[in-house]
Structures are given as structure tokens and as C-alpha cells.
């Protein structure tokens, strides 16, 4: 039987696809902001914080980096209700992505922070800056610049990983793709369209972040 391609019946469902893509971008945007903040805080704790905080941040990073994302997601969505914590699919997805990105961002940022030449911190200390000022004004911006490509890659990985959030019925892009192929049985075409959509989103996000980082986060 010759292969009959019918993309039209997939593309007809463009509002579903668009909605899915919007969800994927939205989840990623929120997880990036929150995960980025967690990453900065934990990286500070791990590289210069008090000992208990250092230990807690370390345990968090190791726990998340050594377990699968889908297990983390299922734990939050199906496990936490045992403790009386019931989250909507969207909130559970955002939480899982945030916690996941936060752990990787911690390690990435820590590498940048620890690469700060000692002399620059001493110069800032000599100029009577506070510890917080030294971290935010002297240490963090060059550290962010150094690790920005790695951080952007990790954000893209988390965005692609968000495809499994469809498993708890978050209506993101892979959920939309599944839905379309279950309606019209055009799995081949549907997943080609889904795949190309992810590819386009990844390229978009990567370029956007590479453009935005130097302009809004660390200068130059």
C-alpha cells in the first residue's frame, strides 16, 4: 500500500496545536523564572552560605539530578495528595519543572560563581561593599555571562522534557498532538507536526534567550 500523507487533517486542528504550544511556552517561562531564582539562591548557598544551608542545597541538587523527571512529576501529582496536597495538573507541572530546573541551574551557576577570580571579590571588599552587594553586583553578572550558554541549553532541555506533563493531562503540545492523532488516527503526520513544532519552539527559545541575556541580565 503506498503511503498516503494527509497533513491537512492534522493542520486543520491548528487551534489545538497553537494552544498546546502556548502551554508549553508558558510552563517553560514560569519554570525558567522560578527555577532561575532557586538556582541563584542555592548556588549562593552552596558556594558561600552557612553550613546547614550548603548541606540542604547539596541534598536537593543531588536528589533531583539523580532521579527521572517523570518520577518527580508523578510524585508531585499522584504522591503528594496522600499528604493532603492536591495540585492541578498545570500547577503540578510548573512545580516539577521549577524544582527540576532549579537543581540543574544551581550546579551550572555554581560553576560560574566559583570561577570568579578571588581578586575581584577582594577589590569589592576593599571598596566596602556588603556581602549581598558583592554577590549581586560583582560575582553574579560575570558568572551568568560565563554560564549563559549552558543555562540556556538546560532551559531548552526542560522545555522539551515538559512533553511528559501531558501524562498528567496538562494540555501542552504533546498532549495536543496525542489528542489530534487519537481523533483522526493520523499518528504519523501528527507526530511529524508535533516534532517540527518542538524543533521550532526550541530554536525560538534558544535564540530569544541568547538575545535577551546580555541585554537584560548581565550587560554587553
Amino acid at each position, binding site marked *: 500500500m503506498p503511503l498516503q500523507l494527509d497533513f491537512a487533517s492534522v493542520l486543520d486542528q491548528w487551534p489545538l496545536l497553537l494552544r498546546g504550544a502556548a502551554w508549553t511556552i508558558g510552563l517553560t517561562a514560569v519554570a525558567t523564572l522560578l527555577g532561575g531564582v532557586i538556582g541563584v539562591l542555592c548556588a549562593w548557598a552552596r558556594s558561600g552560605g552557612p553550613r546547614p544551608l550548603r548541606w540542604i542545597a547539596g541534598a536537593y541538587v543531588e536528589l533531583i539530578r539523580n532521579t527521572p523527571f517523570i518520577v518527580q512529576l508523578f510524585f508531585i501529582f499522584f504522591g503528594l495528595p496522600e499528604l493532603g496536597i492536591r495540585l492541578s495538573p498545570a500547577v503540578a507541572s510548573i512545580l516539577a519543572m521549577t524544582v527540576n530546573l532549579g537543581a540543574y541551574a544551581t550546579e551550572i551557576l555554581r560553576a560560574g560563581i566559583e570561577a570568579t*577570580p578571588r*581578586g*575581584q571579590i*577582594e*577589590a*569589592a*571588599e*576593599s*571598596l*566596602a*561593599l*556588603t*556581602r549581598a*552587594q558583592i554577590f549581586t*553586583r*560583582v560575582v553574579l*553578572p*560575570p558568572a551568568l*555571562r560565563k554560564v549563559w550558554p549552558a543555562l540556556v541549553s538546560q532551559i531548552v532541555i526542560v522545555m522539551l522534557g515538559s512533553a511528559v506533563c501531558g501524562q498528567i493531562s496538562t494540555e501542552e503540545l504533546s498532549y495536543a498532538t496525542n489528542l489530534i492523532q487519537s481523533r483522526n488516527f493520523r499518528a504519523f503526520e501528527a507526530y511529524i507536526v508535533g516534532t517540527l513544532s518542538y524543533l521550532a519552539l526550541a530554536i525560538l527559545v534558544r535564540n530569544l534567550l541568547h538575545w535577551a541575556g546580555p541585554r537584560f541580565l*548581565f*550587560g*554587553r
Partner: protein
Amino acid sequence: MTAASQPASQGGPVGAAHTRVGAPILRITALRKSYGAHEVLRGIDLDVARGEVLAIIGKSGSGKSTLLRCINGLEVFQHGSLIVDGKHLLHDNARAMRELRQGVGMIFQNFNLFPHLSVGRNVMLAPHLVKKRPGSQNEARARQLLARVGLAEKFDAMPDKLSGGQQQRVAIARALAMDPAIMLCDEITSALDPELVGEVLRVVESLAEEGMTLLMVTHEMSFARKVADRVIFMHQGLVHEIGPPAEIFGAPKTPELRQFLSSLHD
């Protein structure tokens, strides 16, 4: 100890621009510092008068950089006391440390400019954050200081576009922007190509002429001889000899200093 601290009034020749009134601006008493079991500073006593220029010389490992870094708390010492401009150095009091550091500028061997900030912003950062100096006033002062070190046109340049000598002059302007009472110079020409040393030393000399209190660890003996009021020779963690440059270089009293000076000519 061969040489104890001397009252400032018996120091070197008093230059016209120098004024020595009131209490010493820096008083170090019985200062001891060790790294683990190794004692690097073994009891330092030193008084420095306002406007005085001190050169600290000695072999590497003699403790001269460590002494300098104790003065603004970059190194923690275990015994003794240190008073700058009437303020006691208290390591465990962050607020008191910042208070003290506002009066103590430091220039480093490796310049240590902030690489992500333009030259102008390097100079303006600390006055903005610490002194809360208003923007326009801060910028005017930064431009004035950069002009003074001969880099008026580099206000918007990034540090990595400058030569070592230019970077070091920016570092001097950055330290001056905090209006310090004392300036510490830690081998500030050691990382420079020989042809760039002069431009930095000329700026330091102009500071000395204007009456800035200067403590410099240096290997530039001819500069020390020309600019310093007193020279300190450090040996094995102690002030081994101290006196006016003419005495230190012309009539060294101890064999260690004689040996050090002759080693320079090899």
C-alpha cells in the same frame, strides 16, 4: 626585634606637602598572624602619620603583603590591634569593617577591575552603593578622577580593551572615588610590562605629593628611594629595619638588609 616602631615625627624628611598633625592615622600594635602553625607576622608595631609615604620592602615570604592586607581586613590576624583613623579593626563586625574600609583604599597587583562594567561604572560602583552618592555628582567625580589619572576619554571603555598600565590607573581612580584616608598599594607594578610601569608610578607619586597617606609594598627600589618618607625592611615576619630611604639604602645596619639589597643588583 631589631627595630621597634618609631614616633612619626622622627620619620623621614618632611616633604613640603606633608602635614603631620594629630594622632597617627594608622597604629599597629603587637600584631601577629599565622596560617595554621606557620607564623607569618610575628609581632608588628608601626605608627604611620597622616600624609606619610611608606615603602615596604623585603624578600617574598617576609610577610610584607600579608601586613598590608591585614590593614583593611583582607587577612585576619590572631593577636594585636590595628587602628585606622581612630577606628579599631574588628573582624567579626561586618558593619565596623565596612566603616573602616571606606577609609582605606587598596590597589592590587592584578588590577582586579570588574570585567562586566565599563571604566566609568567601575569607578562609580562603590560610591553609588556605599556612599549613596547621587548619580550626576557621582559621574562628575568619576570623570574628574579618570581625567586625573590621564584616562578621561576611556569613561565608556570596557576594562579588557585597556593596557595593563591603563587598567591599573583605573583601579587607582576607583580607589580614590571612595575618598580614602590611606592608600595601600600591593606590588602594583609587578604585573606590568616594563614600559608601562612609569605611567602608574607617576600617578602614585602625584598622590604622595598631594599628601595622601601611602603604604606600598614594592620592588621598585629607586621609586621607594625617591618618594618614600620611610622605608620598612621586613624579614621573617618582623619589621627588621625602618628608617628614611637614605639610611635604609645608603647605610643598612643589619646583615639581612645588606644581603637583600646586594641581591637586587645581581
